């Protein structure tokens, strides 16, 4: 049994960048593999639904080139999880195309494993019928059509597909949607290091060098795991880890800092201790992992309509002195205009949503604070409708109704909205929603994640 394993997360998200010189120096410290996450749902469901990515090809290629060259030079595995942000098939293929380009440009030859993460829809329907798709909290209502009609559905893989890829001889693993921690935990768990330490370390490493005292720019982290503890050290000599900075990371983007669910088990961080090593590194002990029936989480993005928007500013003191009364009347006028211009039936299909910046656009009804703005407000009107044409027509008519809606203190025709951009009407295209917050029970961790090998 090995006494320790050391690996590198070059940055929190591929494309986020890292300093080449620090990265090169870190590779000299006996690194056994490089892993980097590419996934996030923070950008919302449209990236998965519309086959898009929120980072540019150029920034991904810059980071990926350095990683591929380094992994081949040192002959160590490179694992990339949740490729292309959402980890759908389109996103995975997008990363694969860039990888092939880099190989050609750098005259490199290697074996790649591709692990798609979009389960077969009939298999999902079958799981649903068997009662093996379970809701998390809060979960939307679903039925069989959720699995047949949703634009894209991905499942978040655990560690096992990565191990299958490496056992098949892969030098580089490009994975679809993945548990962020799984790609970092895979090799340490497989090599027999304590699962609690391996998973807890992975949960911190998936954010690269984020668990530092102050992150001035994205850099990496080096993790060393032994049978008793794991130790984290920032790649950048300008950055430091402290017991507080590492402990704090259990709070970031988690709903519970002590208990975290992963495919095949649950991390328990109730008895963890953090100890400074020198002035830059931290040693962590006591992390637990309890086995549980094997489940993976599902994510789905469905089209829920088409959107158009109008944004306008209001600074007329006459309006602002009694804005709420005026705006309620203006909204009534919008509803009247839509019915008259588009007809009752079409108007009923349009959902008109208002956000008033300077009042409560950010928190909405949840904002209990009193605040009066007599100086300037911004009104964002968004329409969701079954077709783009209808959304566009309703937003245009609604915006126009507010623009010229009478102000009681004035006589004559008024123009109440300052449009800051032209055209003032913007069609936003399809609107998506996440439609699954569920886990599916698997008989085999590889069931939804077929590994395919390619030589370049």
């Amino acid at each position, binding site marked *: 049994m090995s006494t320790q394993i050391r690996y590198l997360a070059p940055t929190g998200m591929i494309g986020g960048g890292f300093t080449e010189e620090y990265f090169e120096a870190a590779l000299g410290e006996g690194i056994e593999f490089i892993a980097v996450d590419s996934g996030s*749902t*923070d*950008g*919302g*469901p*449209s990236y998965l639904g519309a086959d898009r990515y929120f980072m540019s090809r150029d920034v991904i290629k810059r980071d990926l080139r350095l990683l591929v060259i380094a992994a081949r030079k040192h002959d160590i595995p490179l694992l990339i999880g949740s490729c292309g942000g959402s980890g759908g098939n389109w996103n995975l293929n997008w990363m694969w195309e860039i990888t092939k380009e880099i190989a050609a440009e750098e005259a490199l030859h290697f074996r790649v494993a591709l692990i798609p993460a979009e389960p077969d829809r009939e298999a999902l329907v079958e799981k649903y019928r068997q009662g093996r798709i379970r809701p*998390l*909290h*809060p*979960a*939307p209502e679903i039925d069989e059509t959720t699995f047949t009609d949703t634009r894209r559905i991905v499942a978040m893989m655990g560690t096992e597909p990565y191990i299958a890829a490496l056992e098949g001889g892969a030098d580089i693993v490009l994975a679809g949607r993945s548990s962020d921690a799984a790609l970092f935990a895979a090799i340490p768990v497989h090599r027999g290091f304590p699962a609690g330490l391996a998973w807890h370390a992975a949960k911190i490493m998936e954010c690269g060098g984020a668990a530092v005292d102050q992150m001035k720019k994205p850099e990496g982290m080096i993790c060393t795991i032994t049978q008793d503890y794991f130790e984290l050290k920032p790649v950048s000599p300008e950055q430091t880890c402290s*017991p*507080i900075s590492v*402990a*704090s990371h*259990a*709070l*970031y*983007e*988690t*709903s*519970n*800092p*002590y208990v975290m669910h992963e495919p095949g088990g649950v991390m328990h961080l109730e008895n*963890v201790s*953090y100890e400074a090593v020198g002035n830059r590194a931290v040693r962590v002990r006591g992390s637990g992992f309890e086995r549980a029936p094997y489940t993976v989480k599902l*994510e789905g993005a469905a089209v*829920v*309509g088409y*959107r158009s928007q109008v944004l306008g500013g209001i600074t007329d003191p006459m309006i602002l002195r009694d804005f709420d009364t005026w705006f309620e009347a203006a909204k009534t006028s919008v509803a009247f205009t839509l019915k008259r211009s588009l007809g009752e039936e079409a108007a009923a299909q349009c*959902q008109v*949503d208002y*956000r008033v910046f300077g009042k409560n*656009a*950010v*928190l*909405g*009804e*949840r*904002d*209990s*604070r009193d605040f009066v703005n007599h100086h300037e407000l911004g009104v964002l009107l*968004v329409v*969701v409708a079954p077709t783009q044409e209808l959304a566009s027509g309703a937003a245009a008519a609604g915006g126009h109704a507010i623009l010229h809606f009478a102000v009681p203190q004035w006589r004559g025709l008024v123009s109440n909205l300052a449009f800051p951009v032209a055209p003032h009407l913007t069609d936003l295209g399809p*609107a*998506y*929603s*996440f439609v699954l*917050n569920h886990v599916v029970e698997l008989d085999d961790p590889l069931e939804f994640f077929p590994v395919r090998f390619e030589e370049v």
Partner: protein
Amino acid sequence: MVALGSLAQLIRSKNAGPWMLTVDIMFPSADIYEHVVASRVISADEMSRIFGVPVSEIEIFEYAPANAFKISFPRKVPNGHPLDRDLFGGQQFAPLVDLEVPEPG
């Protein structure tokens, strides 16, 4: 009384996946953290009032390793839904900043 924001080193909010929001309140020392814990100001009732979420949906964690509280609750709609107002959930902590807390001794 003092504002919670004047005692904390960081109050922040963020998505915890597409369906949950989570708020972290981090204090610069164990003394201040323990003072706020003892004050019982961060209660499910108070968080329910501030965030407009039923008490039964509020989870509060005291996290001594980082001198921090975590408060988690479901989003009204998942992030990026047409009715969502804050895609990353980054500004939802705001009503906590001026919450009144007894002055530390």
